[in-house]
């Protein structure tokens, strides 16, 4: 009987090892797949890590790129002008933001005569959308809808790394690849055919600081800006997290000492 049991154990162990190794092998094609669909390279963003914060100047430049390029096609429905001067954001002054907002014409109303009217933007206004509805947006973009950018940086696998790679990923279609009408070739977009024409080029936007007006910088800055619009409370979250974790570590230490003391009597 004893002998049988040991045999049985060896068998069981062997089975166990087989299952584990099979799973490891199984995982391998999964990894390969991810690479094929364009796993984006992890970049070193200022907001990464437990102490990460946004780079104010970068967000201001990113806003400018969004404003001058992307906003022609993409809305940001969850962002208000007032957010631009809020803590943890691009750090514009409220005066600057008033000026920024007033550059837009916003439809309001109806007034006492029952008419809609146009007025300059206010701090409380959301960023206006470029198209009045999805249908017109599609008509203007060859049938594709330019998605709202407010939370897009969180809505893609890879997050900001993916957005950056997408903006940098435009290339001449390789020989043999047939692009549909109005489509561009992009290395990281699924299936490599994207309805968004390459949106930015060198020198397209004039920066107000000394930053080089290169494609890399535009892509980085507008991506950081999109990360802020997606996660506007990131800095507050990191700050609070530090305090909470520190408190819990100390509290856990004290509780451990208490527990030891309580149990000392019965061990």
């Amino acid at each position, binding site marked *: *009987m004893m002998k049988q*049991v040991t045999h*049985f*154990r060896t068998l*069981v*162990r062997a*089975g*166990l090892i087989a*299952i*584990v190794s*099979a*799973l490891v092998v*199984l*995982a391998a*094609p*999964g990894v390969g797949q991810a690479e094929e669909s364009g796993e984006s390279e992890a970049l070193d963003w200022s907001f990464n890590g*437990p102490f990460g914060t946004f780079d104010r100047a970068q967000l201001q430049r990113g806003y400018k790129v969004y404003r001058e390029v992307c906003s022609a096609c993409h809305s940001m429905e*969850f962002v208000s002008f007032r*957010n631009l001067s809020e803590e943890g954001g691009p750090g514009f002054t409220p005066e600057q933001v008033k000026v920024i907002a007033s550059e837009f014409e916003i439809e309001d109303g109806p007034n006492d005569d029952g008419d809609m009217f146009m007025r300059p933007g206010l701090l409380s206004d959301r960023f206006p959308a470029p198209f009045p509805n999805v249908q017109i947006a599609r008509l203007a973009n060859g049938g594709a809808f330019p*998605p709202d950018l*407010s*939370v*897009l940086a*969180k*809505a*893609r*696998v890879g*997050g900001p790394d993916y957005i950056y790679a997408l903006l940098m990923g435009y290339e001449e279609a390789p020989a043999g690849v047939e692009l549909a009408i109005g489509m561009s070739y992009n290395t990281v977009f*699924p299936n490599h055919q994207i309805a968004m024409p390459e949106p930015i080029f060198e020198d397209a936007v004039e920066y107000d600081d000394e930053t080089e007006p290169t494609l890399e910088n535009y892509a980085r800055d507008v991506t950081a800006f999109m990360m802020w619009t*997606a996660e*506007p*409370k990131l800095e*507050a*979250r*990191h700050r*609070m*997290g*530090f305090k*909470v*974790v520190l408190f*819990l*570590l100390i*509290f*856990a230490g004290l*509780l*451990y000492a*208490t*527990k030891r003391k*309580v*149990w000392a009597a*019965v*061990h």
Partner: protein
Amino acid sequence: MSQLHGEPYQPKSGFMKWMESRLPIMGLLYPTAVTFPTPRNLNYWWTFGGILMFCLSVQIITGIVLAMHYVPHVSMAFESVEGIMRDVNYGWLIRYVHSNGASMFFIAVYIHMFRGMYYGSYKEPREVLWILGVVLFLLMMATAFMGYVLPWGQMSFWGATVITSLFSAIPYFGDMITQLLWGGFAVDNPTLNRFYSLHYLLPFMIVGVVVLHIWALHVTGNNNPTGISVKSKQDTLPFHPFYTAKDGFALVLFILFFAIFVFYTPNILGDPVNYEKANSLVTPEHIVPEWYFLPFYAILRAIPDKLGGVIAMFASIGVLFILPWLDTSKVRSVSFRPLYRQFFWILVIACIGLGYLGAKPPEGAYVIWSRILTAYYFLHFLVILPVLGILEKPRLLPKSITESVLGNGDGDKAESKG
């Protein structure tokens, strides 16, 4: 057997004497929660019950605050959740605690359940206690599933569509059930409304079943790492201060783990696609449920027939209800069951494997492995456990818990350290 009781409550102040002779609430709580006799050798795996109560409270409190700002309408749900994240004071914190809290709840419940299987806590006389636990698990799954629909993202919508459509496989009643779930002919606003209503209701039903679960616990008392029953007063310690101190320490470590997710990677457990608003015209490339459903999702898809898949999925939880009778061994704890120990770990690995496969597209080797592991899952419960109890020769049991703690027994010494 009636309730196990610790030392009774003695009111000291005049007010409490007055109160106790009218509403003896302390008389009820004190011997069940303060002086309750608890085996002296419980290890840290026993702290997860308390942790689960904490998780439930956190979900209810954050949920009630979310409900003050959330709008259950297809044209406003996604927007209102973004409003919570941006414009409600500390709304981001409340939402991230609630959404990560659901995952923490499942981590804790899975540990709690596997603990029960490892130490044979489902066996006589704790069958009803175990069954109530399985009921809690089902209610939690229903609650989490419906909660995930509320933010009305792409995965909310498509997850709801896939899972509710499963019911259409039920012969004869199928269409009736799906239409009842949907409130129409597809997932839409009425679906969102009824899921919201039920998502608010079910946690309170969970509270009710938790009360029964604890009641049942207080009749039989705790199991323990040796699996042998409490024989004398010497084998136990009063719950307070011994286990309040131990549970408290473990809870804070758990909160620490929880906090790291909430503050540093709040979205890592969720699918990014759910930050895109629901769109019934665009199907996401892969429809994947939340991680805690993946093993069951793998079982569902392992069976080539829709109805068969649904049956297998429900049966995978169903077997847990009859587990106390499937396991024929008289010995509870794995510490004295050398063969069961191996099979226990194989089951754990099979479940993790199923979870991995549930996240993969249902094609090629993934399907084959899902089938193998699904078959193994049922084999474990329906064949291995009954046979093992008969074939296995358990190791010699210590005479008492106290003996095993003092070290001259054969118990799991390492596990019985306080």
